């Protein structure tokens, strides 16, 4: 089984910041906006180097989304940066009308997604954003797993014509992918090959899925781990290819079960290859204050939960 290690932990938002700076140097059409969270989103280096292409809009996210839509008229490629909650729920109608329906080339970059935001608590821990964004026609939804992948995704979405939602997080997290791996929108990454169960994960939960596979192999279970960094469009071919081999699935995501990655995978399977499936996700509840890892444990998003779900779904397959 392929082994993954890491030598450092870095926040995915810093991957976004590094990617944005590189983009600024590569592409003069790239502009960036923030709603008083430029520091948290690690946009300061871009701001320093390209002050004329950086727009601080103040605490006014609705206006930021509209300004971003307007900047595309004239050829700019705007990257908005604020927390995931304020990037989606707070401005849903602005995104829906001025960006998605109008098919504007805006990149909505959202940090501090999910429970691992930590101590700020449920007001800021959005767990519904993937659902809201994937329901919008024209919208691409991307949720990378570590620093390197977030940086690569940031670079890749500038080349994609159309609105994109890019989701990442706050805490330092293992860096386990290579900095030179290509990022192809809509193309899943097969992280570990296996035969007994397919674990499909996104974002921070990809690392948890890899750790779970290591536990499972010691129990004699061969798990295949797929990193779905693009939730929409979903790489159905990769999912079906794996599930036709393993015949059962566990999804893992730092998001509400309703509307998340698991729901997209379930739709794909029930239409094409109905199979037993378990969901590792937050189940219809708000989060709370706490340390990121404590929260993942309390809300059932930890390694033992993925292991248990894998064992359960394998038993269901045998029936």
């Amino acid at each position, binding site marked *: 089984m392929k082994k993954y290690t890491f030598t450092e932990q870095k926040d995915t938002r810093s991957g976004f910041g590094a990617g944005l700076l590189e983009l600024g140097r590569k592409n003069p059409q790239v502009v960036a906006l923030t709603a008083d969270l430029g520091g948290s989103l690690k946009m300061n280096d871009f701001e320093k180097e390209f002050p004329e292409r950086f727009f601080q809009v103040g605490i006014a996210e609705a206006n930021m989304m509209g300004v971003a839509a*307007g900047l595309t008229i004239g050829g700019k490629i705007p990257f908005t940066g604020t927390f995931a909650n304020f990037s989606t729920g707070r401005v849903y109608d602005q995104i829906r009308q001025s960006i998605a329906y109008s098919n504007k080339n805006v990149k909505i970059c959202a940090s501090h997604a999910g429970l691992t935001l930590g101590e700020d608590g449920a007001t800021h821990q959005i767990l519904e954003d993937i659902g809201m964004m994937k329901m919008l026609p024209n919208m691409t939804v991307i949720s990378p797993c570590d620093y390197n992948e977030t940086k690569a995704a940031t670079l890749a979405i500038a080349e994609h014509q159309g609105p994109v939602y890019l989701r990442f997080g706050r805490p330092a997290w293992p860096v386990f992918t290579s900095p030179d791996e290509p990022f192809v929108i809509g193309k899943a990454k097969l992280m570990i090959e296996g035969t007994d169960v397919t674990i499909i994960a996104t974002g921070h939960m990809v690392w948890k899925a890899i750790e779970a596979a290591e536990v499972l192999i010691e129990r004699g279970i061969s798990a295949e781990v797929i990193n779905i960094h693009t939730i929409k469009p979903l790489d159905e071919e990769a999912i079906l290819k794996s599930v036709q081999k393993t015949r059962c699935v566990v999804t893992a995501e730092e998001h509400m079960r309703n509307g998340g990655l698991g729901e997209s995978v379930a739709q794909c399977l029930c239409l094409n290859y109905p199979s037993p499936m378990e969901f590792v996700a937050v189940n219809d509840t708000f989060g709370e204050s706490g340390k990121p890892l404590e929260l993942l444990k309390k809300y059932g998003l930890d390694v033992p939960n993925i292991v248990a779900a894998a064992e359960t779904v394998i038993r269901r397959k045998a029936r």
Partner: protein
Amino acid sequence: MAEIAKLKDICTQVRRDIVRMVHAVQSGHPGGSLGCTEYMVALYFEIMDVNPEQFTMDGIGEDLFFLSNGHISPVWYSVLARKGYFPVAELATFRKINSRLQGHPATAEHTPGVRVASGSLGQGLSVACGAALAKKLNGDKKLVYVLHGDGELQEGQIWEAAMFAAHKKIDNLIATVDVNGQQIDGSTEQVLSLGDLNAKWQAFGWDVLHMNGNNLEEVISVFKKAKEHTGKGKPVVILMKTEMGFGVDYMMGSHKWHGIAPNDELLQKALDQLPETLGDY
């Protein structure tokens, strides 16, 4: 200047188009459309530098217009068609299935002249600010125009954008507010009074002008004055007094005709007041 008499003829024809369009589908918003006819005709036929034959989304080297109060799409569609953006005959498809002329303006069907969807109110000023900033980044000296309803100013996003435009010194932008004092549920005074709009916009850091939006000569002269006010470090807003339903006697002076269409008899009554000038579609 195009002869004022010719522009007035266009206004009359546009008003005929508006009432015929909403009558044909028994839906749409004639009141605000009729009130903003002089504004829209002056803008497209006298004030803006546009290229209707070759519409591009980016509009580089052209003036841009955004309709934030998207429900008055009939007046915009009529003026776009009469200006040559698309065939006048297409006005007959307004609000019908498979049409480019959606109830509220949209880009999904690639309607020439439309650069963003509008209808959900309060969003257009932000979009216009963004487009004006793109023009500055591109070194494009042309201007951006945007129209709002007065009821629309009840949306908070308008004031976010108003603060932003002044702070960023977006001085290549001319916003206009259609102050007709009416919204769907009644007068703005009854529904949610807007207070002293002149003082509000000034306090937000805008250069404020005023005009009677139903006096064509005045609309043109104030627009020209507004253009002279651009490039001076402040965004410009024109508070434009209009009468909802202007040009059709039974629609004037009430919120009743904000969003309903005339029946056959009332259509005829309206058309009797608006002689055909350029030819009906």
